[in-house]
């Protein structure tokens, strides 16, 4: 076993150390590319009081929505929560704190978190509720607001393929927030469809180097489709 071998043997081990009131960054867009088995493990563990940053909150029956049923999430940082009535009900009643964050800002907050940038200026949200209370600065005649980086005690993410060192490849639009979430997690846990031996991935085709990955596990995935839309031949 190499010190670079990131593979763990169970989902329990993958999330060992995750405790109540921690912050978790989760990859996925809608239900596409979500770490579905890691979410189920959090549900099984019953960890509570979590702050979760993820673009969406899943649906009532899939993804992060599963953690809402048992009220495991205290605060959600997301850009779009329209597909989940349970989410809306908990938000309206005040049980669930929500920080609506523009999608690009959320992606950049995670990217910055992983890249050692404490904050950045963006025009996104200036003059809107998102910009309230934030520092405003003018550059080249335009107003920008200061947004701070985000870090996770844990990151949970899904990739397509990995080698044992945690070098990752993603597939199609299942990439989305996964790479940034991983880089900003103090403990970055990634589940994949396939783990290959070291040397089997072309270094030129690795989307995210294993340096960012701490724990790796192979799983099987349901890949629920939210909006199955087809055309006729």
């Amino acid at each position, binding site marked *: 076993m190499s010190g670079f071998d990131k593979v763990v043997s169970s989902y329990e081990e993958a999330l060992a150390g995750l405790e109540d009131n921690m912050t978790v960054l989760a990859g996925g867009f809608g239900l*596409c590319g979500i770490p579905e088995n890691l979410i189920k493990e959090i549900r099984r563990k019953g960890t509570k009081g979590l702050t979760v940053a993820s673009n969406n909150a899943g649906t009532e029956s899939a993804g992060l929505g599963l953690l809402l049923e048992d009220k495991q999430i205290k605060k959600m940082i*997301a*850009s779009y929560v329209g597909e989940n009535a349970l989410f809306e009900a908990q938000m*309206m009643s005040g049980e669930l704190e929500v920080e609506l964050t523009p999608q*690009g800002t959320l992606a950049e907050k995670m990217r910055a978190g992983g890249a050692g940038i404490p904050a950045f200026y963006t*025009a996104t949200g200036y003059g809107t509720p998102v910009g309230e209370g934030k520092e405003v600065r003018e550059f080249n005649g335009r107003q920008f607001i200061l947004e701070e980086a985000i870090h996770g005690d844990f990151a949970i993410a899904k990739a397509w393929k990995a080698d044992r060192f945690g070098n990752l490849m993603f597939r199609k639009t299942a*990439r989305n927030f996964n*790479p940034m979430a991983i880089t900003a997690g103090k403990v970055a846990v990634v589940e994949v469809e396939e783990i290959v031996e070291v040397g089997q991935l072309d270094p030129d085709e690795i989307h995210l180097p294993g340096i960012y990955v701490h724990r790796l596990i192979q799983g099987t995935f349901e890949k629920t489709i939210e909006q199955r839309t*087809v055309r006729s031949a």
Partner: protein
Amino acid sequence: MALTREQLAQRVAQEFQDGYYVNLGIGIPTLAANYIPAGVQVMLQSENGLLGMGPFPLDEEVDADLINAGKQTVTMIKGASLFSSAESFAMIRGGHVDLTVLGAFEVDCQGNIASYMIPGKLIKGMGGAMDLVAGADNIIVTMTHASKSGQSKLLSECTLPLTGKGCIKRVLTDLAFLDIEDGKFVLRERAPGVSVDEIVKLTAGELLIPDSVPEMVL
């Protein structure tokens, strides 16, 4: 007659130019992809991380890993590329997208747009809309001119929480195509069969009417 959703999409698509990278929001904007003019090639950007979005898949082509920003299954055209959300918004914020089309609840003659929440009623979130309106120079807002009860959605000042401030210059409604210039709506085109008077009645914000306001050609 007010434009139908399809006619709105058709009129928007007339703004597509060959070689444009275009981001189309959910709803009517997405329909515009069905009316790309002959001889014009556009590359559709889907902010979840795809440039070169194709039509919906055939049943046997459906791939759970390939969706658009509305979470619908899609396909890719030849020449497509895939990337992360950070990369996607770098191209949006960085002004690399040539045209953005999105919907709204309200716009006002200061170029403000409200599209993501109705306090106490509807909280869906802004998704990528705030980044899109802040990052793009060339934006068309598609919306209905007034509510079903006849309340104008083209206001002197938005009443709902803003998605973006001072960033909208063109609005296409079911009744008219308007520019926003110097704090006023400017009536550029009318929907076929819709009179200037009807538009005036349903526009709450200050409206400038040029000498000639042609009908849209669809």
